[in-house]
């Protein structure tokens, strides 16, 4: 027996819910709601302190790292730059496209809204061009908010979103965060060849 077109209703509902939010209260408000939701999720996790950066990386490998729990295993590409092979929203998008062929209307406006400079994207060092779909507004701030619960050697860490790649292969770069971290644009570009997401981890001294 073949599976045929069996949908995950949670995926479909989530994507359509975003569309409804955009229609009813505008892209800015919908963006805020998704980011708030991401922050509230992060609020519910416990703080963790890794003795060394190596311990942090080991926790990723063991899938014990809080960030890994929400997005899967990221690869350390060197100099605290990470690449994420699969977008955590990939299955949702695939599932939706299987039936409806294209994503709901209004997603482009939403993505543009997420990339606009704002207090909240500045606080979490996301967006600024690194958003390629509305899901980035959930994923990127959630990762940054989770990072606030993590310490390495007793020191706080911060995540900078450097770039992201859409399912279509189109890459988005956060030039502001790339410049601020000193990571080269070429490095980010190369990482995105084999990854869907690229970020930088800073240990605050």
């Amino acid at each position, binding site marked *: 027996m073949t599976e045929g077109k069996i949908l995950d209703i949670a995926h479909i509902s989530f994507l359509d819910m975003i569309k409804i939010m955009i229609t009813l209260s505008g892209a*800015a408000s919908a963006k805020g*709601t998704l980011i708030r939701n991401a922050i509230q999720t992060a609020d519910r996790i416990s703080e963790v302190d890794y003795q060394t950066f190596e311990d942090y990386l080991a926790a990723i490998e063991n899938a014990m790292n809080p960030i890994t729990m929400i997005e899967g295993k990221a690869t350390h590409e060197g100099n605290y730059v990470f690449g994420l092979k699969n977008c955590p929203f990939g299955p949702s998008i695939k599932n939706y496209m299987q039936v409806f062929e294209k994503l709901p209307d209004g997603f482009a406006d939403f993505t543009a809204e997420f990339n606009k400079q*704002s207090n909240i994207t500045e606080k979490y060092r996301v967006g600024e061009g690194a958003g390629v779909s509305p899901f980035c507004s959930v994923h990127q701030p959630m990762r940054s908010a989770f990072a606030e619960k993590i310490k390495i050697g007793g020191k706080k860490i911060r995540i900078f979103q450097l770039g992201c790649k859409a399912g279509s292969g189109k890459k988005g770069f956060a030039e502001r965060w790339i410049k601020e971290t000193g990571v080269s644009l070429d490095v980010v570009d190369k990482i995105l060849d084999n990854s869907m997401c690229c970020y930088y981890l800073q240990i605050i001294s």
Partner: protein
Amino acid sequence: MKNILIVDDEKSFILSLCRGLDAYASEFNTLTACNGKDAVEVLKRSKVDLVITDLKMPEMDGFSLLAYISKMHPEIAVIVMSAYCTPEIKTQLKNYGAFTILEKPIDFQEFVDLILEELNAVSEGCIRGITVAAFLQIIEMEKKTCTLKISSHGKKGMLYFQEGTMIDADSGTDLHIEAAFDIVCWDDPEIELDSVCRKKICNIHEPLSYIIMEGHFRLDEKLLAKENHAGDNNVSQANGTGPIDLETVMKEINEEDNKNKKQVRIALTKEEKMATTKEILNELAKLQNVDAVCLVARDGFLLDSIARTGIDTEMISAIASSGFGASESMGRQLGKGDMIISMVEFEKGPVMFSPIGDDAFLVIIADKEANLGMIRLKLKKHSGELLIAAAI
């Protein structure tokens, strides 16, 4: 000394009334007229406080006289005397206002008591140094029935209240709701209060808070239009040319305005911007009965606020973002253009939203005693400054 005017075509009847009223010469003067036409002449010549009129008269009857008084002297109290007061006539009389009806043959003592009662009812007092809007809110709160004569810079208007509800208005140039919008904004007013409402028909159905808000909004629009017109003239004069295309002039003004905004944005440090934003929010929060003022990014994250204890401004901002966004979406759906202001009126007071540029909006939370017109006016005044100060 107060004057009463008795209008009747039966000369002997007038004579006997006048003889009887001589005993009250220290209380009021008695003037007479034998029909409506004569009465109008007397009203033109003399200040009359009370008119007592018959209905059936030659040349100009009582109904025509009542119509004249309603229009030209709505402040004058009227007693109608009639031997044929059918329910139809009573209904007809109500259309002319609130008159006391005295059926003929009259009881003289009842007649005198009525005159004294009407004369004492008028002009309870004259008030100065309070805004019309603030005074009207007191009338509404006290559920007062009265007629207000409002004078301001040569203008005279009348507002009629039944148990605290404004039912009619006359500004001399406009009637009903249009007159009310005008009068509520008159500045430096002298308010005279009569404790009777001289109108019975309700010609205004909008709540007082709306009338005050809309009145001030209209006034503000007029002033802005005037300023813009003066600006157009200045530009035209400065260029020394003849007629200029209005679109070009507005474009130039907007470009200049944007340039100024940019300069201010560069000139102010982040700390200075925050201080200026706070000052403006403070200015709005200082308005009477305003509980909180929040500057919110459109995504619902709070930028700055001034609020009394107990208001969770972060949560309010998040909720307000949905409300604001929903109002905007509705406007778009209906093709109503950009949103100017949105207000939700609750049992215990209103919440107002107003856009500040493209990326933020202001939330004002007030209690039910707040002067909405004033809030709206201040909002309009400060939104431009806020946009620059917060450099949103």
